[in-house]
């Protein structure tokens, strides 16, 4: 199965980011493909490299970057990012900023879309 995932909330503040990540890891472990992960609304905050959580807790943008490094398309919506000050200068590695058209493509090219939010 080809999956696309939409994340609508920021890191730490809501569990959405964690649920999405755990779901994606389970899907990969089962041999499924992730067509893309799209960050919208406050979800764009997942992509800042300026995140500096305590050392003994998960580093949410780093682990998204690690997923991106495997070739999964990780996209932050440009309009939502501009509103919230997420720019190329602060983007974590292996994540890119693009338009909502990419979400349309992710939906069209996957078998299922799953939304994680509040």
């Amino acid at each position, binding site marked *: 199965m080809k999956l696309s995932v939409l994340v609508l909330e920021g890191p730490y503040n809501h569990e959405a980011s964690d649920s999405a990540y755990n779901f994606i890891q*389970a899907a990969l472990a089962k041999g499924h493909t992730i067509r893309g992960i799209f960050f919208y609304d406050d979800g764009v905050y997942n992509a800042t490299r300026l995140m500096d959580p305590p050392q003994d807790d998960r580093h949410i943008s780093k682990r998204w970057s690690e997923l991106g490094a495997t070739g999964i398309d990780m996209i932050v919506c440009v309009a939502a990012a501009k509103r919230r000050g997420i720019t190329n200068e602060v983007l974590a590695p292996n994540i890119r900023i693009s338009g909502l058209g990419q979400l349309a493509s992710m939906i069209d090219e996957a078998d299922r879309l799953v939304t994680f*939010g509040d």
Partner: protein
Amino acid sequence: MLHTVNKSPFQNSSLENCLRVAQQGDVILLLEDGVYAVSVGTAKSSLIEQAVKRHTVYAIEADLKARGLANLVKEIRIASYGDFVDLVEQHPVHAWL
């Protein structure tokens, strides 16, 4: 259809809203704070006690354990994220955020 609910029923009507729309035979998956709905003896237990008559209801184990929930409506199926993935493979999904 697979319906996911992630908010606590004590504070948020998403579970009730979901159950009003879900068709007989649809699957319900509770995750995050949504798992509070499956505890027995609460003011909201009847929602799930009724729901299991029309739907298979799953709750994510990691979310139950995180919240210390052990006394659950007996018809609930405990699900791993892997089970969640399998359910998504079988059904289109609507998230009741």
